[in-house]
């Protein structure tokens, strides 16, 4: 167990077979929610990325199945609601989901069946991490993977609020937040994510982010040669880029792919909440409390004087006298 995994690796390559020590431990943490511990000298790993090529995806759900198997989750057997999409949404037991959308291309009048594998995008600037109040519950490793550390999670749902992609789901059972980990436990020992491993058409590939961008460029060129003039890479800069990227045949219209955000970023409301509100609020409360304490300590205070007591007594007595002798 002395060796550490080679970093990073592709899903297509056969993984190392010898026992390895995982390399995605505390030493690799570069960001941690709510001031949680980060490595002082983090192991500088190459940025990784998962690339999902929509044009190669056949919607077979092998990725969903592999995800369930690897993470040992137990999605419920639901019902059909008029769609191939099952479960109907991401759940604490289903970290990835094929979303199906029937779209008629207005240019060609041809139907296109747009199938997108939804799941955590592993933002370079993760909104969940920003929103999370629990120290160390959400971490980002130096290779870009955003991971939930469940022992620190308190189940508040702030990550749901913070995420620009509506990804985290809070378990009703253990009240912890769940999402795709990019198989950090596999990547840590030199393997690719389970979904990429299972994908029969290699619509899901994994490797260094640079390699994935290069691979995507080749795919985009192919798509353009087939008439998809607007084919492109989805690596939104609003969240600093993502470590899960899409090749979209219609990259000019991400929202046709089951509401993929056009230009996602951490909501200004969340920024305001976690930024100025937090700072100013803490300052205001601190100043107020300190002021109150100081004023209490160093000012005399408003005291009732003896003459006030006497005045009160006179008032009460007058009234009583009046009562006793007056109108009987």
């Amino acid at each position, binding site marked *: 167990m002395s060796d550490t995994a080679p970093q990073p690796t592709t899903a297509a390559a056969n993984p190392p077979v010898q026992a390895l020590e995982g390399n995605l431990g505390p030493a690799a943490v570069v960001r941690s929610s709510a*001031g949680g511990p980060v490595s002082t000298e983090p192991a500088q790993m190459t940025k990784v990325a998962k690339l999902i090529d929509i044009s190669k995806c056949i919607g077979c759900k092998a990725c969903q199945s592999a995800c369930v198997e690897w993470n040992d989750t137990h999605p419920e057997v639901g019902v059909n609601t008029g769609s191939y999409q099952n479960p109907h949404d991401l759940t604490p037991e289903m970290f990835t989901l094929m979303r199906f959308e029937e779209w008629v291309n207005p240019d060609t009048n041809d139907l296109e069946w747009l199938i997108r594998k939804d799941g955590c995008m592993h933002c370079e600037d993760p909104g969940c991490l920003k929103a999370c109040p629990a120290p160390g519950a959400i971490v980002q490793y130096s290779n870009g993977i955003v991971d939930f550390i469940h022992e620190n999670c308190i189940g508040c749902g702030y990550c749901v609020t913070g995420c620009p992609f509506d990804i985290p789901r809070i378990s009703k059972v253990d009240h912890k937040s769940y999402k795709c980990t990019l198989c950090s436990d596999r990547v840590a020992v030199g393997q690719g994510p389970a979904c990429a491993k299972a994908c029969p058409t290699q619509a899901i590939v994994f490797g260094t982010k640079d390699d994935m961008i290069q691979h995507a460029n080749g795919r985009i060129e192919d798509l353009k040669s087939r008439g998809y003039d607007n084919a492109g890479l989805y690596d939104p800069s609003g969240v600093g880029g993502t470590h899960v990227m899409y090749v979209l045949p219609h990259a000019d219209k991400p929202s046709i792919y089951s509401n993929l955000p056009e230009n996602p970023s951490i909501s200004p409301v969340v920024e305001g909440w976690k930024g100025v509100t937090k700072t100013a609020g803490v300052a205001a409360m601190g100043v*107020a409390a300190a002021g109150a304490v100081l004023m209490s300590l160093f000012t005399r205070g408003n005291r*009732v004087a003896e003459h006030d007591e006497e005045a009160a*007594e006179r*008032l009460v007595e007058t009234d009583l006298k009046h009562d006793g002798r007056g109108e009987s």
Partner: protein
Amino acid sequence: MAGTRYSERGDHIETVDPVTVSRYRGITRLNHWVTAISLIVLALSGLAFFTPSLYFLTGLFGGGQTTRWLHPIIGVVLFFSFLLLFLQMWRLNLPRREDRVWVANIGEVIKDQEEKLPELGKYNAGQKFVFWAMTILIVVLIVSGIMIWQQYFPDLVTIPTRRIATLVHSLAAVGIILVFILHVFAAIWTRGTLRAMTRGSVTGGWAWKHHRKWLREVAGRQNEGPAE
């Protein structure tokens, strides 16, 4: 004729020498302290989520998970507790003309020169401000709080709404903590106030100094009916 223009019906002169005036019934005091403790618990637990530097406060409640569970439940307790207080107090907290004069001369209050101020009923404008601020903020907090109550209302509102609710909730929380500080400070700084909520009564001098109309009305009413 002494009525209930400036006082609650139950307010009465307790003793004559020295004069003490009953200001709050036992049930009201209990109600107040339940509310107060709830608010303190909410503030401590809420602050833990508000800023990482105060996350250690979750330790007071047995960790993050229990704090997360407890905070909204206490919020509901506070809401109903305060609602009872509100029903008891709203009438005498309605603004009156003299409040404006009092506010205009707030400096005199701080300088302890209250002789120049108009006589007041049971509550001064500061107390009324605290009351109404609490009222509004608690409504805002309970509504926004339910919107972000993950455990029971995860899908009540859309995520954009939830973001706004979270922001509003934290702004309101900061607000209510400021009001709370003001309230506590005022209660301590104005000597003789605290006993109104502990023992339920105030000294005659305190009543004379701060709430003379109230004292007059209570004292006057005392004479009408069978006293003692």
